[in-house]
């Protein structure tokens, strides 16, 4: 009686565990599966493809060959003697960009925005969080609470004023301006999180370690660079990955500011545009999605211990 009860409870336990794992992983498996399936295999409900096709990846990454038939027909049109030069130039220009979806370029854009803004955020946040955790100064408590407030504030609320500010400062109608403005917006979205997580961590570092350093003649600034930063490596990695992911994910502001500047688009807006650009594009969409996911997964599984610790401390956003 007792042992059969135990067996049943074990079965229930493992069924529940398998169900929850399946629920979590199924959409990912579905994505990867469709990305390698041939078009005729797509309606096949099985996750395992009949054959593995990497054509979608090749096309997305720009390794696929240029459509010969199309270029031949363009050549024929260009041979037409009635064409005036301006028309000829227009046609050439239209077909000049053979790949209208330079995925590697979009990936690079996302990477640049995410990493540069993370470095700026973290550099500012390390010093500010130290001061907020360790030093007493007028306006500090309002600053601590302010940090939390902005940490919970959503992007939608700042959308209109930021657009108006960008327009007034002449930053949103040229590439350089938009690049600087977007970078600042990325920093703005990550800095509260960095301040909050680093501040929590710094306060738990025993003060005696710093005192010892100061007795040895270290200045406050040297204490930060020589004692605090080396001691905080795990949290710095965690904060870096969190900030990078926020940047890599960003959609709202990129869709507002970067859309008019084709080659500056980030992954998130580019993939969404790709989805609505052609019919029957599932395989390439899934390949693009998988490639977007890959760096995040690499980060996550490399630093999973740090990430999990950061999450249960409540230092998460979203």
């Amino acid at each position, binding site marked *: 009686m007792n042992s059969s009860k135990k067996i049943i409870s074990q079965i229930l336990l493992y069924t529940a565990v398998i169900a929850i794992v399946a629920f979590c992983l199924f959409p990912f498996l579905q994505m990867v599966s469709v990305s390698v399936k041939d078009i005729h295999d797509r309606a096949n409900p099985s996750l395992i493809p009949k054959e593995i096709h990497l054509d979608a990846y090749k096309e997305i990454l720009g390794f696929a060959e240029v459509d010969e038939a199309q270029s031949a027909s363009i050549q024929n049109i260009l041979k037409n003697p009635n064409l005036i030069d301006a028309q000829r130039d227009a046609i050439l220009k239209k077909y000049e960009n053979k790949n209208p979806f330079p995925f590697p370029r979009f990936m690079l854009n996302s990477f640049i925005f995410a990493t540069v803004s993370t470095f700026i955020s973290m550099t500012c946040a390390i010093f500010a969080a130290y001061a907020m955790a360790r030093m007493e100064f007028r306006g500090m408590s309002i600053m601590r609470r302010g940090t939390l407030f902005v940490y919970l504030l959503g992007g*939608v609320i700042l959308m209109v004023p930021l657009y108006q500010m960008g327009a007034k400062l002449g930053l949103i109608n040229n590439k350089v301006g938009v690049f600087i403005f977007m970078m600042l917006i990325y920093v703005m979205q990550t800095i509260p999180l960095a301040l909050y997580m680093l501040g929590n961590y710094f306060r738990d570092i025993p003060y005696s370690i710093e005192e010892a350093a100061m007795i040895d003649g270290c200045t406050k600034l040297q204490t930060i660079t020589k004692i605090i930063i080396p001691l905080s490596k795990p949290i710095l990695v965690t904060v870096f990955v969190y900030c990078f992911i926020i940047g890599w994910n960003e*959609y709202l502001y990129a869709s507002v500011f970067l859309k008019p500047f084709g080659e500056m688009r980030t992954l998130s807006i580019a993939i969404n545009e790709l989805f609505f650009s052609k019919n029957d594009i599932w395989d390439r969409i899934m390949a693009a999605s998988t490639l977007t996911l890959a760096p995040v997964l690499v980060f996550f599984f490399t630093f999973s211990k740090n990430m999990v610790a950061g999450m249960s401390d409540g230092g998460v956003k979203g």
Partner: protein
Amino acid sequence: MLNTTSVGTTNKSKTKKLVVKYKDEKLAWALVGPAVFIVTALIAYPTLLNIYLSFFDIGLDGSRTFVGLANYQNLLSNPSYFSSIWTTIIYLIGSVGGTTLLGLGTALLMNMEFKFRAIVRTIIIVPYFAPVISVVFGWKFIFDPVNGIFNYIFADTLGIINPSTNLIGDPNTAMWVLILFSIWKYFPITYLIILARLQIVDKALYEAASLDGANAWQRFRYVTLPEIEFVLGTTILLRTIWNLNRFEDIYLLAPQIKTLSIFTYEQAFTGVIDQGLAASASFVQLIFVGVGIVYYIKKILKW
């Protein structure tokens, strides 16, 4: 106010501390300066500017005409604004409720002993970290009427639903998919926070309850629940604040679901652009979010 931690007790050391403190204040401001500048220029100032803008009619060329409360009047007489509030409430109830229940259930499950527990605990966090843009199309595919597994099972195999059902395309059913998606994406945080709390519950409490003859439900109800009540409340409040602000997930998965965020975005950037109206809608949303945040900071967080 004076910070009393690590301040000496004798008068002499107090004076010394004060002198150091004065020098420190300059350094402190130098250290926080850049961060404060970014937060002030890109968050605090825009928040105030938004309130100001909500009293203006903003032209496409950036011209501003003072209109008083007209934007708010327009907002309150706009039926789609009210329907977006209603949509947001449904979304919040479904997504916060579902996230909390699944997060709680998973936390209880992962607190038990079983094989491969460490790897399972890690795997189920992946949905939270996955970029929205990279998973949203996987979800769209599942419910695609032609190729998707959902229609394959429920229409082609079981015949419960019409084969032409487009769960995401149909505004009446898209909400269900959105709620399911939100639960899938955000229950890992709730689960982790509750699990962290569960792990420090004193085991002796359960033993004592068992000795008193409490069954599994009673142990949960009278031992576990009181212990985790606080974190449960915290996660519900935070999830409500965050989902109230949510934009990307909804806009990319099913933009026909007009929550407040989508309503504001569309007013500001698509169709007939009315940024003044959008500013007033943002401000109303800020009030709701702000009440939640202030409550969180004051009552829950001792920072």
